[in-house]
C-alpha cells in the first residue's frame, strides 16, 4: 500500500515534556512495511530521558486506522480533527504525513515566531506546535483508554528535570509549610 509506505516518515506519538529545542531527531530504529516500529527521541531530551515510542503497538491500538492519529493526511479522514483538508485537499502539502511536517517544532525560536507571525489566516495562527499537538492528542486518547497520562508515565525524568521540579533528591528539605 502506498499509504503505508508513506508512513515511513511518520512521527506518530512522541511524548516529550519540556524540551528546550525541538530540532527533533527521529531515529527510525526498525523499519517495517507498516512504518517505524519504534521511534526514539533523544536529541531534544533535557528534563526527560529519551522516549521510546512503540509505533507498532500504537498501530495495533488504532486497529490499523492511521487517520485516528494522522487525522487528514493518511487513511480515511475522520471528522472533527483538522480543518486543513478543507482548503488543502488537492495540494501537495496534504500529502505530508509526519507531524513535524506541519506542526512547528519550535514556534518560539526567532524563526518560529517569524513563521507564526506571517501566517495570515486564523487557522494557521492557531495551529498547535509539535509539542502541543503531541500532548493534546496523546493525552486525550490516553485518558479515554486508561493509558498512562502522567508525565513520567511516558518519559522518565532526568536529574535536571528533578531539579526543575524540586523533586526527588532535589525535594525541599524542610517539612511542613511555615506559617507566615
Amino acid at each position, binding site marked *: 500500500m502506498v499509504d503505508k509506505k508513506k508512513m515511513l516518515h511518520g512521527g506518530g506519538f512522541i511524548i*516529550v*515534556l*519540556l524540551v528546550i529545542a525541538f530540532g527533533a531527531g527521529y531515529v527510525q530504529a526498525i523499519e517495517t512495511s507498516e512504518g517505524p516500529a519504534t521511534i526514539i527521541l533523544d536529541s531534544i531530551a533535557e528534563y526527560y530521558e529519551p522516549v521510546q515510542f512503540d509505533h507498532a503497538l500504537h498501530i495495533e491500538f488504532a486497529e490499523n486506522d492511521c487517520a485516528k492519529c494522522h487525522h487528514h493526511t493518511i487513511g480515511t479522514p475522520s471528522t472533527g480533527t483538522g*480543518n486543513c483538508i478543507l482548503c488543502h485537499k488537492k495540494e501537495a502539502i496534504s500529502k505530508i504525513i509526519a507531524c513535524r511536517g506541519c506542526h512547528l517544532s519550535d514556534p*518560539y525560536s526567532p524563526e518560529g*515566531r517569524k513563521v*507564526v507571525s506571517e501566517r495570515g489566516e*486564523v*487557522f494557521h*495562527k*492557531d495551529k*498547535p*506546535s509539535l*509539542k*502541543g*499537538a*503531541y*500532548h*493534546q492528542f496523546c*493525552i486525550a486518547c490516553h*485518558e479515554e483508554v486508561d493509558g498512562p*497520562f*502522567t*508525565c*513520567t508515565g511516558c518519559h522518565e525524568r532526568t536529574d535536571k528535570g528533578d531539579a*526543575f*521540579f*524540586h*523533586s*526527588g533528591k*532535589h*525535594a*525541599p528539605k*524542610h517539612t*511542613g*509549610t*511555615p506559617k*507566615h
Partner: protein
Amino acid sequence: MDKMNRRLFLKGGLAGTALGALGLVSKNASASSGFSGYSEGFGVLVDLTRCIGCRTCEAACNKEQQLPEPDKPFDDFSVFDEVHEGGQKRRTSEKAYTIVNKYKVEGHDKPIFRKVQCNHCNEPTCLTSCFVNAYTKTPEGAVTYNSKVCVGCRTCMIACPFYIPAYSYSSVLNPVVKKCIMCYDTRLKFGRPPACAQSCPRETMTFGKRSDLIYQGHQRIRLNPGKYVDHIYGENEVGGTAWMYLSSVPFEDLGFDTTLGNAPIINNVKEFLAIVPMVLTIWPALFAGFHLLATRKNVNNQGHESEKK
C-alpha cells in the same frame, strides 16, 4: 476692616489656586477613558480545556523568576487539596507568581484546572491606585512593578480585583510587592513568551498579539460547537486583560469573578476625582464669600443697634 478682609480673601484664594493646580494634575492624569490596551500588546490565551494540572508552568515560573524553594515539589499534586484560610484554594504568593488550582465541577467526571497569575489588565487598578507610580503598563502588554519606589501601602492589593499581588511581609528592610510581570525583563521585552506559556506541554497557553488571540479564541469557540462556553474571560472584563481564558464550564464554577463588569475599575473612582478640582476651585471663593457675609452682618447689626440707641 474691608481692606483687611480683602487681604485675607486674597490669601485664601491664592492658597486655593495653589492647591487647585495639584488637583487638576490628578484629574488630567486620570482622564484617559476607554483605553483598550496597546494595539501591538502581547497577551496569552489560556484554554482551560487543555490544562491537565501538571504544574510544569509553576516550576518554570519558579526557575525563571528565581523564586525561593517551594514548600512542596512541583510534582506533588496534594497541593490541589490544600485548604487555606476560610476554605480558600491556593492563591499567588510571594513564593509563587502563578499557581494551578483543581476544580470539581458538577456534571464533569474529570476535574478542571485553572491557572492563576496576574492578568495584566489594559487599565490595571494596581497601577491607577498607586500613589508612587510603581506600576507600568508596557507597550508589550505587561504590568510591571518598580520595587525601588514602593512605599508599601498595599493599596494595589486592595485594588486588584483578581487578588493577585502578594507582599513579602517577612522582609524587614525591603518588603515589596511580589507578582507576575509576564517575564517582562527576561523574555517579553524580546518578544518571547513568558516561561510558563512556553513550558506548557499541552499548549494550554497560546502566546501572541492580544488582538489576534481574541480572534483565535472566538474561532475556537465557533469551530468546536459545544466544547466551550461562548465567552472569552478577559476580553472585556474590567476593560480587558492581556491574559484571557477559554473554558468548557461556566467561569464562576472555576472561581472566576463574573460580577466585575466590563468597565475599568478606575471608572468607579472617577466620580470622586471629578469633584476634586471643583472643591479646589469653588470652595475658596464660596467660603471667603460666606465669611464676608457673616461678618458684614455683624457690622450691620452693630449699626442697627447704634441707630436704635
